[in-house]
């Protein structure tokens, strides 16, 4: 195994290195950051047999073009419905292919989705901060945003032909499904009916959408009084409402504390679907109890894990594995040749 070197020939805004995120630093004002869509990020890595939280490139709708200067490396693209142009072929995402010296790869927004992940069968050489390469966008701490002309080195890069090809259909939720939220913790600071409005009416994703949060357009969610709460911790998935009655969903690079009341908080696994919405898309919410929220999260995580385990197995070696299983069970009798 050797290094592979890529050059960024074009990058849209908000394209950055992201590993699984840094945990344990919120008390110092540092959110986890990491992928906006954590499931798609894990999928891109596991499809190559890499750890789920390995460093990958988060690609925005702005897209990304790379040229391979030297070496050979397999890559995976997962998340949303992005399109790839690679070595003269146009293919859809949720795929594994191999990039060789002299070839170019372009990833562009396709039919749906705001973010996809480009992972490699090799270690991405990216700057770590507090033990993680996840990029915190406003500070640019961590691996940082990609820039045109930048060279990316992949250590111990390898080609894994046995993994190439489209992945089986991922277990993604129905795009029209309501996003589950647990009311609060400050739903009682809103005018009567505000929580009903949140869970009854559709909201529209606005262009004010980045890694910190997603501003929603929709019916006003009026506060009961003008008093602000003492600033308190916030989370990825907190739906905070400013004095103007407009809701913002906090996301990967959220502020760790804030003084706006939170009417509800998204179930953790639901944020992955929400972040794939684009400006203009409609979002609907449904209130669930804390127990129901845990049940849903556990069910989602189990479903995802089963699929991630499935794609982590190189398909080319399936025959070998069956052969092994047969030998062990004694079913294999063809020992003459």
């Amino acid at each position, binding site marked *: 195994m050797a290094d592979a070197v890529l050059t960024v020939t074009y990058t849209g805004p908000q394209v950055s290195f992201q590993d699984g995120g840094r945990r344990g630093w919120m008390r110092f004002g540092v959110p986890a950051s990491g992928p906006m869509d954590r499931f798609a990020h894990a999928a891109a890595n596991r499809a190559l047999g890499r750890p789920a939280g390995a460093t990958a490139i988060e690609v925005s709708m702005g897209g990304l073009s790379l040229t391979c200067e030297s070496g050979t490396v397999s890559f995976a693209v997962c998340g949303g419905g992005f399109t790839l142009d690679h070595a003269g072929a146009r293919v859809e995402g949720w795929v594994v292919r191999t990039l060789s010296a002299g070839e170019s790869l372009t990833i562009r927004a396709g039919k749906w989705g705001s973010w996809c992940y480009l992972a490699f069968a090799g270690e991405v050489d990216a700057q770590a901060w507090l033990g993680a390469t996840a990029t915190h966008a406003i500070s640019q701490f961590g691996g940082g945003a990609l820039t045109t002309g930048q060279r990316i080195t992949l250590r111990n890069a390898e080609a894994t032909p046995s993994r190439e090809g489209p992945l089986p259909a991922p277990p993604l939720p129905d795009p029209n499904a309501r996003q589950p939220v647990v009311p609060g913790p400050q739903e009682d600071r809103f005018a009567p009916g505000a929580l009903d409005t949140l869970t009854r009416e559709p909201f529209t994703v606005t262009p004010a959408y980045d890694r910190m949060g997603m501003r929603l357009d929709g019916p006003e969610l009026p506060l009961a009084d003008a008093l602000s709460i003492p600033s308190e911790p916030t989370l990825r998935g907190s739906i905070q409402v400013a004095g103007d009655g407009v809701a913002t969903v906090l996301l990967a690079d959220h502020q760790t504390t804030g003084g706006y009341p939170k009417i509800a908080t998204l179930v953790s696994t639901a944020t992955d679907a929400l972040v794939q919405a684009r400006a203009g898309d409609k979002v609907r919410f449904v209130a669930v109890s*804390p127990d129901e929220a*845990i049940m849903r999260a556990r069910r989602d995580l189990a479903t995802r894990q089963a699929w991630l385990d499935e794609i982590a197995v190189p398909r080319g070696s399936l025959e070998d594995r069956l052969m092994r299983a047969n030998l062990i069970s004694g079913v294999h009798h063809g020992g003459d040749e």
Partner: protein
Amino acid sequence: MSGWPRYRAVADHALLVSFGTEIGDEMSAQVLALDAGLAQFTPAGVIEWVPALVNLLVDFDPEATDHRTVQGEIERMLANPVRTDQQGQERIIEICYDAAFAPDLEAVADAAGMTTEEVIRTHRDAAFRVRMYGFAPGYAYMSGVPEAIRVPRKSAALRDVPAGSVIIAGPQCLVTTLTMPTGWSIIGRSPTPILRSDAEDPFLFDVGDHVRFARIDRDTYEARMAERGDG
């Protein structure tokens, strides 16, 4: 009305423990006691927790535990508090009040009916305490701005305020760590690194620490920045 503390389930993965509504030393003491308790006996499945002004948020792995279990552990912890040093460390922050670093010093002086030198002395002699981090990495909100020099947020934010700026609004003071816009009043600049390269202990202070400012002149400030090598 139920008594305090109050527990609120947040989504599928967090529990908010609130001790009251009035910001002050009494609230801080309760938040810090729970903070210390969690550090000493972290319940299974708890990933991290965030102490704030009147409450503390516990974030956990929903596959490993649940709100009820975490709440039970915290109730036991609060019933049998651990004896810890929750007084916090003493920290000294150097500050240069040079006019070039303090574009709002005159306005604060006008509002307070003082000379700029009196504002500087009042700020320099005050005792501050880190109550909470927030907004951005290393933004430590300190209480302790003396009544006499308290000013509200400005109506318009100033863009590109350099990292290291010492800013005040109401009773709060903080030293910025990033170049960012702010609507707070800028009264000086500090060369003291708050984000440090020490991987084990990357932040200068923790919630609960006591902070005092030490005045330095412009030459000393420049010398400190040259020593840092990253300014």
